[in-house]
């Protein structure tokens, strides 16, 4: 496989290979490093971090579903200051390229988080998780509303300028994901991450109540892969120049290849890591073999290849 060029780039950031972790599915890296060296994958995407420490939600926080799972963690985390000081520092020290995911409850919180990340050393990109409720707008999820989504990205862009690429993470729970994508790109997003989880619910038929303490949760895993492929395909078609970090149900190299063909230039592996903690590194190897077997000499040639014209 020597000679195969597996590198990819998200705006000005280049990565040796396109396999990333998914935010919230790799904690902040340390735990995963027991299974493979983190510098072997493209980058670690950290758990979405907020301004303050967060306890997250009450348990039960998860339910297994057919080929997937629901989660409602509620962004448990140490807060940005402890994160930068301890977790990011650990990642940098261990040679992991790091994409920091930030989450806020207001436009100002996002802006403040971005400013702090900008000042930190060793950050490859910022992923802006706009699938959080906007407390200033009836708890409506930022990513489900064009205006809120735009305001967040504009504010983050103002905070970081062109120092670090900004990746806006989109929710599939919208009528028209392309219009949200266009809005956040116009607002300054350098790339898009998609898809976040779908809103779902499981009712426990013993207690006859919603199983999660939070009632609803986010659906992830192979079950949602067809939705991810569709969303990536639609957005890549509309915005072929915009880098897309694809995710949603990737369990094998073949699954990753599907998202790449649809238009993703990097792949985040999420729920699969719970099934198999070596999943990111295994998927990296499987994807490379597949691409070589299909005759690609460069990863980048495969990105969006399913869109090629018929002749």
């Amino acid at each position, binding site marked *: 496989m020597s000679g195969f060029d597996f590198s990819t780039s998200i705006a000005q950031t280049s990565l040796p290979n396109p396999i990333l972790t998914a935010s919230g599915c790799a904690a902040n890296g340390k735990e995963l490093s027991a299974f493979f060296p983190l510098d072997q994958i493209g980058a670690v995407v950290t758990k979405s971090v907020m301004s303050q420490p967060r306890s997250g939600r009450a348990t039960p926080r998860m339910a297994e579903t057919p080929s997937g799972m629901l989660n409602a963690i509620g962004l448990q985390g*140490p807060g940005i200051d402890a994160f930068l000081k301890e977790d990011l520092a650990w990642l940098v020290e261990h040679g992991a390229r790091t994409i920091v995911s930030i989450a806020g409850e207001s436009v100002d919180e996002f802006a403040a988080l971005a400013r702090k990340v900008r000042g930190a050393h060793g950050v490859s990109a910022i992923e802006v998780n706009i699938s959080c409720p906007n407390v200033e707008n009836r708890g409506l999820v930022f990513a489900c509303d064009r205006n809120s989504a735009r305001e967040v990205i504009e504010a983050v862009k103002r905070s970081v300028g062109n120092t670090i690429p900004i990746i806006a993470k989109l929710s599939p729970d919208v009528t028209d994901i392309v219009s949200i994508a266009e809005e956040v790109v116009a607002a300054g997003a350098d790339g898009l991450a998609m898809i976040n989880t779908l809103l779902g619910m499981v009712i426990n038929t013993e207690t006859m109540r919603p199983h999660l303490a939070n009632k609803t949760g986010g659906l992830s895993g192979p079950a949602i892969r067809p939705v991810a492929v569709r969303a990536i395909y639609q957005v890549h078609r509309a915005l072929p120049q915009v880098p897309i970090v694809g995710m949603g149900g990737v369990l094998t190299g073949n699954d990753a290849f599907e998202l790449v063909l649809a238009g993703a230039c990097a792949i985040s592996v999420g729920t699969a890591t719970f099934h198999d903690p070596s999943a990111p590194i295994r998927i990296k190897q499987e994807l490379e073999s597949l691409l070589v077997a299909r005759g690609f000499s460069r990863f980048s040639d495969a990105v969006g290849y399913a869109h090629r014209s018929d002749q």
Partner: protein
Amino acid sequence: MAHSASINPDVTQSECEVISKRKVGAYHHLTLAAPAIAEHAKPGNFLAISIGDMKSSMLLRRSFAIYQTVPRGPFGGTVEIIVAPHGPGSTWITQRAPHEKLDVVGPLGNAFKIPKDPVRALLVGGGYGSAPLFALAETLRQKNSRVEMAIGAATADRIFAPVEGKRSVHSLMIATEDGSSGAKGRVTDLFDNSLSAIDIVYACGPMGMLRALTEIGARAGVLVQCAVEESMACGVGLCMTCVLPVQDKDGVIKMLRSCIEGPIFDGSAVQWDAIGTIPPGTYGAHR
């Protein structure tokens, strides 16, 4: 996570052959060829097994306490677990035949803390919760401790107390709710709500039992180490689903991951009443 415990440093992921499977009452006793786990596991550690193949609709691993390990032997190191067929995942595991392989991650979690000096220890197991206590008993005995064990369950077929295991304990009490074996009633009734001549309690079983023991221990001024069983999506510290409210040494309540900061906690630190909530004052509680 800031201030987080580290994953078990000896953890490995491997395909492990099922060496044998045997029915023991309501449970299935599985022996797996797992040399790396056998070599490093400590009493209280658990392992996580994936269900079905890549085409299974069940994505999440199921966790099982390690019953015992045989570091060297004809199969080069084996690990044994006791599985209660419950839902579809555990039932699938009990249907495996010898020579089939399972994808196993372990050893996971922290271990029971062993006092340096000889102690008088009471080990309390509820249902299959007795499984990890026999290896603990053996370790304690090697330290010249005195080991009493009490096991409770709903019915006799749910009392896991193998002859080999019994050898490691000085006394064994049994309670069943229907009286089909030992005393009729709960295992905690056995000590009449008091602990005499006990320095430390180790417990593994349902949350209700752990909570009751913690209260009994508190009244007697005896430390109770509890192995909790929270629903886990990953078992390795990645997902934050397995948390429960635990007070740290500074008195701050934090939502700790039972897979990596546990499963063994000091019972008096666990906020038993508040499980399933975020108790007021929890570090980072919002609103």
